[in-house]
């Protein structure tokens, strides 16, 4: 052994590099209860607690506002109204100035925050809240989009996509079908509810610990509300207990109120609404009413489509513009339309302002595409899978979307073919037909549906990210980036990428809380882009440092740069190998900068919204799923017997995490399309505001057999980080196969001659109603 031979020599591979099944970075802390969420932080002495007072009518002017009993209640320290907002009483994320923090003179939905009580304890604040006496002059309220007039108010400008002359194509088509579909909304039900904890500082400063996917936006909102520059506001989040889009803009309300109160009273203030208030006062997935017309030929080839996507946006725009845009971007799913027209109607309603939710309008868009496939199939008496395959995008032709982007990376056909084989579709189709012929009450259904999901924020400027990497003199690494951790494993993946760059074990890389003080002007951790953007930025930061180290080592040891090679745990310089930490020590002594800010912006993308043309997406993610269900046609109750999934994640950075996203996304999507039903009454009151009435999937709802596979041949056609693909949202839409399997089972009642037009969520009631309709129509 030479003197320089290090301990680490011989190690073939680092622990936790890319393409390893590294555990979630906080797994140990989660299982031992040591992971700290915001509500777990030690509260400084003097911490106060806030509770929101919510409106009790859906629309109207406030005519009487008596808060004297609230102020007099035990423990109450202050009551805030719109007048107490020192800066701008607005938290509209798009600058439309339509979303007051606290209602100012009028309310526009049942549950709108009108005032906030700040008290010594959370319970005192909650009790005092109930003592407010508010009178309203009620005005007519629009709750449901089905009741909207033709000229109804929109919350933001609609979008139109147009390619070819769809009206002419439909008119000339041998067959046409026109119909309407209703698709329900969804509550996020992140298990950790919304929370903000504000600590006042000197000058105008405030630090807010906020459970948010978008710290930079919270920073801007708090700064506007306080009337201070952004530099006075620091937002920090180590982890969320789930987000799913529900903490992209919806955290703003809680953070601004906590910050205003903290600055006003010069005491720490925490705001954690209870679950009912959280569900009542925060936005959800948009429900849609989709009108469609499809023209097609005798073989089931689609010739032209026309879609109108009307969405219940609530009283303010929030993200409804981009959400309804993304619905249109996915009205094609994996299918080529020779002529297409699609328009959005982002409708104003007197309900909570709906917001981002995993898929961001994409799922609602795709459900429309799959409905027309069903229509064509039933009209011609074909298996819907045959119609699906017939209308897929091509690779060299038939590959332009309704928004004029060419699909360059199409693998839908291969994914479908492999899944069709592995799920044994054809044989099961025959078995099910035989089973149904003999089974009068229980009917089985089968469906295989594909997914193609566009990756990138459609607002081009959001597609940028920053990261900060420090290497300390002992060789340990501090990693910070603009993305937030909500359970999806982003921090783990980004740490894997940095470990890989330096060729050090992942436990040498410390992942730190996201804070606006370290990486500024970040985008939301959303649009599935967390790893694509932040992983690249972190890789850039690490490479900058690495390049400095290479230049230094080459010069110091008088070897060419290409003879400085990072090996697992060590660096080979010429014919000498030294531990990574030793090189760092030498570099420090030679005054080499060991810190770097990394940056990334997605190339190639552009989008002209006025024209409805461009390349909004860098690439697409693909997958397919096949479900088999059994339906009790006397009660509408059903079971998901088996689900097979094949999904492609490019070259997966972490298969275990990706498979977890697929399983979790699928089940969440299944909840959306089956059991999760939001019900507003005529007064605009949400009646499903707790898990007792709002049914998210339980362990027992999961398919009896559940086979999930990653396409191991996949790699991203674009040079993304290690050629991986985004995985946060796309699997959500795999759950469409459950809706269509239910539709298939229902259709069997009438011999598959009538399209069941099963709307979502396909609750047992809706399934039963569809069965009854089939019986009636089938008998005709």
């Amino acid at each position: 052994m030479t003197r320089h031979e290090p301990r680490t020599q011989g190690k073939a591979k680092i622990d936790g590099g890319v393409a390893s099944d590294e555990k979630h970075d906080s797994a140990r802390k989660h299982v031992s209860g040591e992971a700290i969420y915001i509500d777990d932080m030690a509260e400084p002495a003097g911490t106060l607690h806030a509770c929101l007072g919510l409106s009790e009518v859906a629309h109207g002017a406030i005519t009487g506002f008596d808060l004297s009993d609230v102020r007099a209640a035990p423990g109450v320290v202050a009551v805030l109204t719109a007048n107490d907002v020192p800066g701008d009483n607005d938290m509209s994320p798009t600058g439309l100035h339509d979303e007051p923090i606290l209602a100012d003179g009028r309310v526009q939905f049942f549950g709108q925050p009108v005032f906030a009580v700040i008290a010594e304890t959370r319970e005192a604040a909650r009790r005092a809240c109930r003592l407010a006496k508010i009178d309203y002059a009620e005005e007519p309220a629009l709750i449901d989009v089905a009741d909207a007039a033709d000229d109804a108010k929109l919350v933001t400008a609609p979008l139109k996509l147009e390619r070819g002359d769809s009206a002419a194509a439909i008119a000339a088509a041998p067959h046409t079908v026109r119909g309407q579909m209703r698709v329900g909304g969804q509550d996020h039900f992140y298990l950790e509810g919304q929370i903000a904890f504000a600590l006042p500082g000197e000058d105008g400063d405030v630090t807010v610990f906020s459970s948010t996917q978008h710290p930079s936006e919270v920073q801007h909102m708090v700064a506007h509300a306080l009337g201070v520059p952004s530099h006075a506001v620091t937002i920090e989040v180590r982890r969320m207990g789930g987000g799913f889009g529900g903490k992209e803009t919806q955290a703003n309300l809680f953070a601004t109120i906590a910050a205003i109160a903290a600055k006003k009273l010069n005491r720490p203030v925490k705001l954690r609404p209870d679950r009912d208030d959280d569900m009542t006062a925060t936005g959800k997935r948009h429900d849609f009413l989709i009108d469609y017309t499809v023209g097609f030929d005798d073989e089931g080839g689609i010739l032209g489509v026309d879609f109108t996507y009307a969405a219940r946006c609530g009283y303010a725009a929030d993200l409804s513009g981009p959400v309804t845009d993304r619905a249109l971007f996915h009205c094609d799913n994996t299918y080529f339309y020779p002529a297409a027209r699609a328009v959005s109607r982002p409708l104003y309603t007197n309900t909570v302002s709906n917001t981002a939710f995993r898929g961001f309008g994409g799922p609602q868009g795709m459900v429309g595409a799959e409905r027309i496939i069903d229509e064509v199939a039933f009209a011609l008496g074909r298996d819907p899978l045959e119609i699906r395959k017939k209308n897929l995008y091509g690779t060299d032709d038939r590959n332009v979307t309704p928004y004029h982007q060419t699909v360059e990376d199409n693998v839908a056909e291969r994914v479908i073919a492999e899944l069709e084989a592995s799920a044994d579709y054809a044989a099961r189709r025959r078995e099910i037909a035989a089973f149904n012929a003999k089974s009068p009450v229980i009917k089985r259904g089968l469906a295989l549906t594909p997914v193609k999901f566009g990756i990138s924020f459609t607002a081009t400027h959001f597609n940028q990210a920053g990261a900060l990497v420090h290497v300390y003199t002992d060789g340990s690494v501090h990693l910070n980036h603009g993305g937030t951790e909500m359970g999806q494993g982003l921090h783990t993946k980004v740490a894997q990428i940095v470990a890989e760059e330096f060729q050090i074990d992942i436990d040498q890389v410390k992942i730190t809380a996201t804070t606006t003080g370290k990486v500024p002007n970040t985008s939301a951790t959303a649009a599935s882009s967390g790893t694509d953007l932040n992983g690249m930025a972190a890789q850039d930061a690490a490479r900058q440092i690495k390049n400095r180290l290479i230049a230094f080592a080459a010069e110091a040891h008088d070897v060419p740069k290409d003879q400085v090679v990072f090996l697992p745990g060590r660096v080979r310089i010429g014919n000498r190998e030294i531990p990574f930490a030793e090189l760092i020590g030498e570099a420090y002594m030679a005054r080499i900068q060991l810190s770097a800010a990394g940056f990334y912006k997605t190339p190639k993308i552009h989008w002209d919204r006025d024209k409805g043309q461009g390349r909004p997406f860098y690439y697409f993610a693909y997958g397919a799923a096949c479900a088999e269900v059994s339906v009790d046609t006397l009660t509408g109750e059903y079971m998901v017997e088996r689900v097979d999934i094949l999904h492609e994640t490019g070259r997966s950075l972490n298969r275990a995490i990706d498979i977890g996203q697929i399983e979790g996304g699928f089940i969440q999507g299944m909840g959306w399309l089956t059991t999760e039903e939001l019900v507003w009454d005529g007064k605009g009151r949400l009646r499903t505001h707790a898990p007792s009435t709002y049914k998210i999937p339980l362990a027992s709802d999961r398919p009896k057999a559940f086979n999930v596979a990653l396409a191991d041949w996949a790699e991203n056609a674009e040079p993304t980080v290690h050629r991986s693909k985004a995985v946060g949202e796309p699997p959500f839409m795999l759950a469409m196969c459950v809706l269509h399997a239910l539709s298939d089972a229902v259709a069997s009642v009438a011999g598959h001659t009538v399209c069941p037009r099963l709307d979502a969520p396909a609750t047992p009631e809706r399934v039963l109603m569809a069965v009854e309709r089939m019986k009636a129509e089938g008998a005709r």
Partner: protein
Amino acid sequence: MTEVSMTVNGKAARASVPDNTLLVDFLREHLRLTGTHVGCDTSQCGACVVHVNGRAVKSCTTLAASAEGAEVTTIEGLANGELHPMQAAFKENHGLQCGFCTPGMIMSATDMVARYQAAGKELTEEAIRHELEGNICRCTGYHNIVRAIQDGAAKMAAG
């Protein structure tokens, strides 16, 4: 105010608290045992499950006073130097994403395994799914949670 005293994770705990203090608040605020989470406040999500005298209970709807004299175990008390086999199984099987449901899941899991073992019944996959009816997870789709419980149960049986 009420005097409450109980044994929490093997240590005596005593405090004078308002009569309506919930067990979860006693644990989180008085004892700073914040591994027990609050997800719904209304006995439906299971994030707050702890053991009281060896049985799983939802601490968000249990009064601290009703645990007077009891032996309480929280997620923090489960590990004994090294992780409890069920904790290790959740970690090894990727039985978590955001982790918020995890402590409650593990406390429910150890309780169900103990009950089935005591009754000499087999804890089948179907039984696990049924037993988890009071524990909601919004992230994982339950697949890895169920796998973790099967694995943890096997490890617990092995001693």
